[in-house]
């Protein structure tokens, strides 16, 4: 297929969604309020759905064809291509919400660019994902504003979250996604995040230069050990 988006790009997007969805799903049943528990789980369902759509596409395009579950459950940690931000442990709710903002602000311009891509199957997935990412962005934006402009404790927590997650932003912004313009995406990300911080009366720190990419991915290793445990105990099973 001449217009096909390269597999490595599809996997970067799919794996990022999958691991981020995994982290979000850990909150289900443990959220700060019943209503918010339900809201955050909607985001988890959205990004896991995106991961599935992309993995199904990759699986169908492989020769020989494989399955979404083979890709999700039987690749080893070093074969995953997600951005590091997606795999980090949740931390407190401020960290989860900030991460949601940073990722959604990154995904919205990605999906909006891929929506117009000549790879029609990717464009269809992106068109749907763009709507979901905009909802995720709105949700995260509102909470970041509440935390920054809330109580002294919430402000202290969101500031700590910025400190904890900011080092991972360089890699996020440096990630190449074929079919999208990285500099334009970077500018769009900065505008959206800075606007949220401004409304939250928070300082928007400079995103530093990219250090050595994190090659250990210890968090991903632990995440996959849990996620893949049952499937790997029964390698021949159909569920």
């Amino acid at each position, binding site marked *: 297929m001449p217009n096909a988006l390269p597999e490595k790009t599809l996997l970067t997007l799919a794996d990022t969604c999958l691991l981020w969805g995994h982290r979000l799903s850990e909150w289900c049943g443990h959220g700060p309020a019943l*209503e*918010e528990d*339900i*809201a955050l789980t*909607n985001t988890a369902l959205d990004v896991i759905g995106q991961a599935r759509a992309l993995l199904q596409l990759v699986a169908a395009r492989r020769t020989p064809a494989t399955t979404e579950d083979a890709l999700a459950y039987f690749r080893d940690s070093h074969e995953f291509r997600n951005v590091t931000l997606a795999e980090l442990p949740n931390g407190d709710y401020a960290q989860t919400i900030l991460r949601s903002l940073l990722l959604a602000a990154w995904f919205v311009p990605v999906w909006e660019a891929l929506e117009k891509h000549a790879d029609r199957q990717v464009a269809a997935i992106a068109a749907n994902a763009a709507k979901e990412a905009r909802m995720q962005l709105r949700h995260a934006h509102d909470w970041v504003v*509440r935390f920054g402009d809330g109580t002294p404790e919430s402000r202290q927590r969101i500031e700590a979250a910025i400190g904890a997650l900011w080092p991972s932003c360089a890699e996020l912004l440096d990630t190449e996604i074929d079919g999208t313009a990285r500099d334009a995406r970077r500018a769009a990300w900065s505008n959206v995040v800075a606007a949220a911080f401004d409304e939250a009366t928070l300082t928007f720190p400079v995103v530093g230069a990219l250090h050595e990419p994190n090659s250990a991915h210890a968090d991903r290793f632990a995440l996959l050990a849990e996620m893949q445990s049952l499937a790997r105990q029964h390698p021949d099973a159909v569920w």
Partner: protein
Amino acid sequence: MSTSPESSWSLFEVFIRSKQGLDHKHVGSLHASDAAHAVTLARDVYTRRQEGVSIWVVPSNAITASDPDQRADNFDPMASKIYRHPTFYDIPEEIGHM
């Protein structure tokens, strides 16, 4: 371990329009920190199966209701006004539908 007013969200009633052209209908309530927050949460809580295309929220304490003890006096008198209903009138068969 107990709850505190500082952390308690207010109660809102939620109304959903199930499709364009229909009325908003009361579906339940939820807790939120303010009205805008209630609208976004209502979307997550009450439209997970495409139940709606539009949402209204109203603070529960803003609703004024008729007195249930007045129900008979309020509404029974309407029962005798049967001439308001089209079925009150005989239409000759030759005329057909009117």
